[in-house]
């Protein structure tokens, strides 16, 4: 098990992704006017994309 796939690192990664996803999903809910199921689905997927990019960006910057 290399350093990056140790359970603790995977847990940390998931926690960070989840935190970003929750924040961005909340932002989506704030941005839209009417909430229905389709908005929630699209919002959840956009927040997921945003969370992945946020983590990739953070790692890209401090990875050097």
């Amino acid at each position, binding site marked *: 098990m290399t350093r990056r796939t140790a359970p603790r690192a995977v847990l940390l990664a998931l926690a960070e992704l989840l935190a970003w996803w929750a924040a961005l999903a909340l*932002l989506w*809910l*704030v*941005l839209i*006017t009417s909430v229905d199921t389709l908005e929630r689905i699209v919002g959840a997927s956009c927040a997921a994309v945003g969370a992945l990019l946020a983590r990739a960006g953070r790692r890209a910057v401090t990875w050097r």
Partner: protein
Amino acid sequence: MNGWILAATVGLGGGGAAALWGVTTGSPGRRVIAQNLTTSAVCPALLLLSQGYGRPAYVDLALLMALLGPVGTLVFARLLADDLADERPSAWGLTWAAAGLAAAVVIALCVAGGPGRAMVKLLVIGALLIGGNVIASRALAGGFREVRGG
């Protein structure tokens, strides 16, 4: 006679004229500061217009302005880092005044709009605007020292 549109007109006229005068004359540092303050003058005006016209859909314009205005200033701060290196332009008085103006406008609109999701959206826009304004001023005042403009 709609008070919101009047406030937007006054803010736009004053802020816009000052920004235009600042960006066309003076040292490069002062021009970039004027460009940075344009965002803080135009974004509250857009919010007031959205309230004045009674169209909440126009708030998206202010959202984009609050988001991309500071990014434009970061572009100039980074790519003009060589020219601004010796000058270290910083106008913290103006920055905090603009932040205060933006906060006042956002609070007034929140009070007028009443609680709800729209108010949270206004607060998000206000936070983005003031945060962006302060960070852009910080970037101008020497945020990109060892960048050699690259």
